[in-house]
């Protein structure tokens, strides 16, 4: 008997996925990833089985990332070579992550995997999110709003290490780096992607702070990594027949509007805005866990058993916080885009006036 079933796509379901797709796409176009984490819970809320939701989410990610990467490559933001190298190791990380999840599920059941995912959420987003946000705030406060960026001490050290036979030149770093440093970073990106659906929360900060890429290039290069990982993941799930291509294409319908808008947005903002959006989303997503964790602990009898109604309300609040994270990110992007375009127009008018040129 086939235990997997695909849902009937109603107009309301399609509209919801389309709208979430637009917002998620916008965030992905801007920071390289981050739009996908609400889609799996959103689909599951609509009655889509967990495995189909994960598979369909990945199937919409790789074409979205491809379109976004092509668009941002036109603006000179993408380091294709770095993206492909990181992507290949991320693929291994993703496969390993799946095995870890399956093993935890076999021993501790669904609640065990949920707690594991929450633990990773809290640790990664807590540390990296706070760091990224602090860095964005520091740059903003220092009035460092130019396109120039400062290579961290760690990245300078990484770039200074010469391991013969493993060195590769990357345009975004303007330096040669040993592939041996890229292996764990790519692997961790894939591991995170298979755990919380957003590998970019490690991939982008790693490229900025460990390898020394500008935030603008790191966020665009992440789209190449997402394409490589998403393509591999889709083949994996499609082989098992669990991809609901209808759901994936409905999300894509919205997300391709969003990703183009997010990509255009990057041309009007400074490097720190990318960090700001990423940090705000990461920290907000982190808060969503506080609503989920009591339920998991209650199911494992580690705390007093909670009423089903209370669990349902807490889960709804958690899901709402995930949407809030995306909405906040989208709001900052749209406002930065509007301000950036107005400023850009003003500058052109001033230059035209100086030039004695009437537009």
């Amino acid at each position: 008997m086939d235990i997997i079933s695909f849902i009937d796509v109603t107009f309301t379901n399609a509209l919801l996925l389309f709208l979430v797709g637009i917002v998620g796409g916008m965030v992905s176009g801007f920071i390289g990833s981050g739009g996908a984490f609400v889609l799996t819970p959103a689909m599951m809320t609509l009655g889509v089985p967990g495995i189909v939701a994960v598979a369909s989410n990945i199937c919409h990610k790789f074409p979205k990332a491809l379109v976004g990467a092509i668009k941002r490559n036109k603006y000179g933001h993408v380091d294709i070579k770095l993206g492909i190298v990181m992507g290949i190791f991320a693929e291994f990380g993703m496969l390993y992550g799946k095995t870890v999840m399956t093993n935890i599920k076999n021993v501790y059941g669904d609640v065990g995997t949920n707690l594991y995912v929450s633990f990773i959420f809290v640790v990664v987003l807590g540390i990296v999110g706070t760091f990224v946000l602090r860095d964005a705030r520091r740059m903003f406060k220092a009035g460092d709003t130019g396109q120039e960026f400062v290579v961290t001490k760690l990245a300078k050290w990484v770039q200074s290490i010469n391991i013969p036979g493993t060195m590769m030149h990357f345009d975004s770093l303007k330096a040669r780096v040993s592939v041996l440093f890229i292996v764990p970073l790519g692997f961790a990106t894939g591991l995170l992607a298979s755990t919380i659906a957003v590998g970019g929360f490690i991939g982008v900060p790693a490229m900025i702070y460990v390898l020394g890429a500008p935030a603008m290039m790191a966020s665009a290069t992440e789209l190449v990594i997402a394409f490589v990982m998403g393509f591999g993941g889709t083949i994996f799930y499609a082989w098992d027949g669990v991809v609901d291509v209808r759901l994936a294409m409905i999300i894509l319908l919205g997300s391709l509007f969003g990703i183009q808008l997010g990509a255009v947005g990057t041309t009007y903002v400074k490097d720190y805005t990318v960090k700001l959006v990423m940090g705000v989303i990461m920290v907000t997503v982190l808060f969503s866990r506080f609503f989920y964790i009591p339920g998991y602990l209650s199911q494992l009898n580690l705390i007093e058993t909670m009423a089903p109604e209370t669990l349902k309300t807490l889960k709804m609040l958690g899901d709402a916080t995930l949407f809030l994270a995306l909405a906040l990110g989208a709001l900052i992007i749209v406002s930065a885009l509007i301000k950036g375009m107005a400023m850009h127009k003003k500058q052109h008018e001033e230059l035209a006036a100086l030039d004695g040129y009437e537009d």
Partner: protein
Amino acid sequence: MAFDKASLPKALIFGAISAVLYTLMFVYSGELIELAHLTRQGEHLWFIVPILIAFVFSYVHGTFTGAFWDTLGLKPAQKYNKKKK
């Protein structure tokens, strides 16, 4: 933000193709569900169908959405080119 007429034909053509593709997808929704079912039953080569659909849709719909924003005047920031006298 200025309306750009030049991108309009591209937006209209690719928008129309995209609409046809999405309509076909819903018309053949039952067949797509059946193909996924067959894949799960062991006919794994059908895995290629969702991947091909994803590539075709991303090209057509991606071109449309790009032209759509261009038409609305949402273009990337350009460097100011000094007028030559």
